[in-house]
């Protein structure tokens, strides 16, 4: 209905965009269906245009036309403007042309596998050439045109990112509908735990809807993916790469031959640098959304305003667009609001209204920058210029006046600014870590270190707060956290550009600490129980280990062990038994330069030595090798001794049924059961006693001392040549 109200300029613009687009569209393989739709659309539009022209030829005062008014009011109640003015086709999209095209192009690459159109290859070349000619250079998004062996594009996932309200979701929907897909959307409101996520993925990519007029292939749109749990994103990545080992997925996909993703997946996020997305970033086609041009947005707003009969002017709308950071949604909401108040929209109104302010999330780095840098006054819209840094602490008399509000130099506004930015970001812990690791390298004047110590006290407070919040789940304290940032801003900020590095030290330290703890645990695990019982980790760390390192280094000459003096041998033995007690040994490792060295294992040197310190004395390579071997030998000896004592013990307890070693056993003749019956060929029992000769023979064999075991049992005996003569001799004895 509303299309009728469209103005002339809008259509001109649209037509021009259609002509611009039509070539691209035409070049891509457009099925008959789509063409037909396109044609329909075109006809419709022409009709519309005619009608619109008719309307626009009527005097402009028709704005207040009652019919129009009531109609729009009816619609007001039914629909939000945001929904109402959502673009209805690809051509109406407001977002950046380049981004739109990249996404569409990417989606078209899927045609081969999804729609099974082979002739595409030829056409693709054309697209390519056109790509190069026309906008390859100005696009920052690198799209890999090649198809992999399955005929899928190299990048199987597209990741749309950009601040909210630029129309990312709309774009994804439009483009995929345009390319002939059925859109399946998953957003934050759905359950996104890994399992559910996987089933959804499978359902969306491997089935097609049977409902509806024409079954179309699905295109999965994952909205707000930056909020999804990391585990789910992992599932997605594995799925995309065809590595998913999940049970259900596996069996299903095997049936279909090769676990390849055969449907396009479009992900949408606000912040592409969320850690959870890190691995996704590497495999995805990233389409950055540049903010919509203010003028373009304003233009559109003007359209809408005209349609809704709001009296306004371009300047006001431009200001509105700028103020909302080109967020289409918030602009529309503001307009809607003004409309409902039945007021005209002027520049002043826009400036006064606080509605345009939105909760915009900024990247971590920009927040840190804001904390560390004093913003110079913005002179774009207002001409109040202050002198540089000298008067930055002057309190401003009237904070509510327009100038003051937009002046970034006053203390109060700085505070508000920082507070707002930090509150918007929300991730206080990481922000604090960033400030903490960076503030000392900032350039601020503080010769007496008072600012530093005050700032650090605030760090303590912030740490206590966050600990309290996490420990007791007491989120009521949360609002107090951002104030520390204000303090740090006042203490450490300067005008110069802050060089900020990502805070990784804290994390690294934690990793190293864990490693050290692991070593200690390893050590404790293997210690002799009697030693272990008197040692606890802390004591080991403080008292024993540092000294142990020195105790383990006796003065030994690098000569063969046979040449050692008695004392040296004693030392060596002592070292070896200590090492066994504490579960230590030397292991050979290869250094980066390719040399071999012996290191302690577990490496307690890492625990006890500090950088810049060297162990007092070092053992030579040969000595370490020697010790290592001796430790192994000694260990073996000990286990053997233990086994020995164990067997001794068992022997004592089980004296009665002594088991003779194999070589001492004498054979007993196997009793052949008398009942065993011989049957002849026909199965009749044959009575047939043993001949006495036989019996005598066996008896003789059994009684004699010499036995020949043929392939009987297992023997680990040493091989040695024995003459038959010897055997006979022993037999004779």
């Amino acid at each position, binding site marked *: 209905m509303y299309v009728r109200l469209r103005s002339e300029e809008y259509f001109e613009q649209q037509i021009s965009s259609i002509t611009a687009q039509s070539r691209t569209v035409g070049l891509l393989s457009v099925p008959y269906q789509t063409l037909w739709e396109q044609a329909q659309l075109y006809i419709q539009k022409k009709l519309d245009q005619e009608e619109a022209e008719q309307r626009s030829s009527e005097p402009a005062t028709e704005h207040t036309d009652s019919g129009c008014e009531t109609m729009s009011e009816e619609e007001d109640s039914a629909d939000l403007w945001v929904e109402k003015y959502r673009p209805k086709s690809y051509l109406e999209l407001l977002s950046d042309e380049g981004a739109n095209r990249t996404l569409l192009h990417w989606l078209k690459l899927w045609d081969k596998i999804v729609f099974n159109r082979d002739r595409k290859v030829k056409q693709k070349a054309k697209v390519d050439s056109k790509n190069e000619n026309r906008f390859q250079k100005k696009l920052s998004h690198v799209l890999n045109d090649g198809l992999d062996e399955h005929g899928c594009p190299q990048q199987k996932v597209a990741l749309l990112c950009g601040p909210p309200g630029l129309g990312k979701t709309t774009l994804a929907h439009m483009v995929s509908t345009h390319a002939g897909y059925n859109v399946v959307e998953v957003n934050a409101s759905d359950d996104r735990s890994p399992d559910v996520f996987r089933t959804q993925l499978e359902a969306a990519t491997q089935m097609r809807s049977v409902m509806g007029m024409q079954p179309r292939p699905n295109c999965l749109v994952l909205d707000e993916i930056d909020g999804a749990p990391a585990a789910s994103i992992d599932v997605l990545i594995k799925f995309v790469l065809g590595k998913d080992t999940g049970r259900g997925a596996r069996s299903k996909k095997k049936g279909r031959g090769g676990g390849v993703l055969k449907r396009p997946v479009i992900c949408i996020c606000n912040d592409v640098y969320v850690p959870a997305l890190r691995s996704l970033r590497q495999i995805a086609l990233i389409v950055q959304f540049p903010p919509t041009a203010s003028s373009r947005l304003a233009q559109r707003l003007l359209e809408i305003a005209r349609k809704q009969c709001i009296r306004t002017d371009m300047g006001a709308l431009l200001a509105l667009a700028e103020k909302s950071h080109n967020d289409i949604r918030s602009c529309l909401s503001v307009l809607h609001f003004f409309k409902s108040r039945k007021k005209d929209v002027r520049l002043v109104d826009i400036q006064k209204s606080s509605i345009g302010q939105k909760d915009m999330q900024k990247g971590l780095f920009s927040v840190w920058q804001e904390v560390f840098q004093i913003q110079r006054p913005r002179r774009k819209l207002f001409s109040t210029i202050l002198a540089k840094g000298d008067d930055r602490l002057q309190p401003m008399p009237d904070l509510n006046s327009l100038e003051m509000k937009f002046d970034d130099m006053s203390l109060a506004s700085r505070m508000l600014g920082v507070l707002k930015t930090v509150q918007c970001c929300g991730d206080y812990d990481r922000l604090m870590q960033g400030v903490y690791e960076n503030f000392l390298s900032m350039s601020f004047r503080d010769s007496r270190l008072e600012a530093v110590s005050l700032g650090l006290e605030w760090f303590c407070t912030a740490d206590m707060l966050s600990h309290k919040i996490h420990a007791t789940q007491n989120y009521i304290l949360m609002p107090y956290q951002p104030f520390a940032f204000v303090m740090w801003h006042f203490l450490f900020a300067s005008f110069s550009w802050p060089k900020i590095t990502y805070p990784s030290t804290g994390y690294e330290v934690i990793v190293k600490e864990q490693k050290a703890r692991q070593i200690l645990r390893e050590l404790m695990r293997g210690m002799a129980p009697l030693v272990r019982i008197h040692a606890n980790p802390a004591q080991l760390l403080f008292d024993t280990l540092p*000294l142990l390192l020195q*105790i383990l280094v006796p003065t030994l000459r690098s000569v063969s062990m046979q040449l050692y003096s008695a004392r040296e041998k004693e030392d060596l033995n002592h070292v070896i038994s200590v090492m066994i007690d504490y579960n230590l040994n030397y292991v050979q490792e290869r250094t980066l330069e390719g040399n071999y060295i012996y290191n302690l294992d577990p490496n307690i040197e890492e625990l006890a030595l500090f950088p810049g310190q060297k162990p007092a004395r070092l053992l030579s390579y040969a000595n370490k090798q020697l010790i290592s071997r001796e430790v192994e030998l000694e260990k073996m000896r000990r286990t053997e001794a233990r086994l020995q004592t164990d067997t001794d013990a068992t022997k004592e307890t089980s004296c009665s049924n002594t088991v003779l070693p194999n070589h001492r056993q004498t054979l007993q003749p196997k009793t052949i059961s008398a009942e065993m019956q011989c049957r002849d060929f026909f199965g009749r029992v044959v009575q047939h006693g043993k001949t006495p000769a036989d019996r005598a023979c066996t008896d003789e064999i059994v009684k004699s001392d010499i036995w020949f075991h043929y392939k009987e049992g297992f023997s680990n005996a040493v091989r040695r040549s024995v003459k038959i003569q010897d055997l006979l001799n022993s037999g004779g004895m």
Partner: protein
Amino acid sequence: MSLWVDKYRPNSLTKLDYHKAQALHLKNMVQQGDFPHLLVYGPSGAGKKTRIFCLLRELYGPGVERLRLEHMNIQTPSNKKIDITTVSSNYHLEVNPSDAGFHDRVVIQELIKTVAQTHQLDPSGQREFKVVVICEADCLTKDAQHALRRTMEKYVATCRIILVANTISRVIPAIRSRCLGVRVGAPNKEEIINILQSVCRKEGLSLPNELAERIAVQSNGNLRRAILFLETCKVQQYPFQPDQKVASHDWEIYLKDTAKMIVLEQSPQKLLQIRSRLYELMIHGIPSEIIFKGLLQELVKNCDMQLKTQIVEKAAFFEHRIHLGSKPIIHLEAFVASFMAIYKKFMEATVADLF
């Protein structure tokens, strides 16, 4: 059992070298066949564990020396798996619940309860109860201590608990009043010297008295340390020289150097260096309170009385705050920074006074 510390550990109550009256009392108690839960406390290296082991040996005979290591898996309510290593004999079980960190309560509830609920299997065993030794009881969280308290009440018939702690200030009163407290003070200097001498005699070495005394002083009442020092000295140089250098711990040296750096220069850049050094100490597992103590002892050396009180006050303030927060490094650094500020002001004032 070849490090001297382990080799010459006394293994019966009568052989203990100091606090003999207490040893006698313990012997008395055990001879009656029963004892209450015990809370053994005293500074590190004073011989708490040795004493407990002697007690157990007195109680059960040499069977307690047949020890084995066991690894147990415990699952928390939140499905996290915890790996706990225990040392046990047929008669007792030793566990360090603080290995499980935050989840020590589960260890107490699951492990110790299971042990406590099972009766002694061997009917011919002398005692009808088992003993559970809990190390580092002062590191237990409050939750764990409360859980323990209940367990102590419930299973007193089948199980006795011996708690080992460095200090009982952190043990909740409810547990303290359920246990018989056994305080094991550190041996004094003479006792340490005697022990060192007797160790040397057994090893067939001669130890000059001066060296023994220096070792005793440096060990600061920690017998384990003293014997380790002695052995280190022996490895480094034998025959002993009276003026021989006694090796000290690397982390102590590092800590002292850090403190010296702080006194030498006060600037944000220096603070950054100090931070990395503090991080280094923490990576090596030195707990923050030890770092605090070490820094404090070094830092106050050059100050006058008034400054000292100020610094001590700051130290106490920030040290307490560590326990309220979760990032010790921040609090340590805050202390260093406030020391720097105070010290700088003081230095400027003295310089101004001079001219």
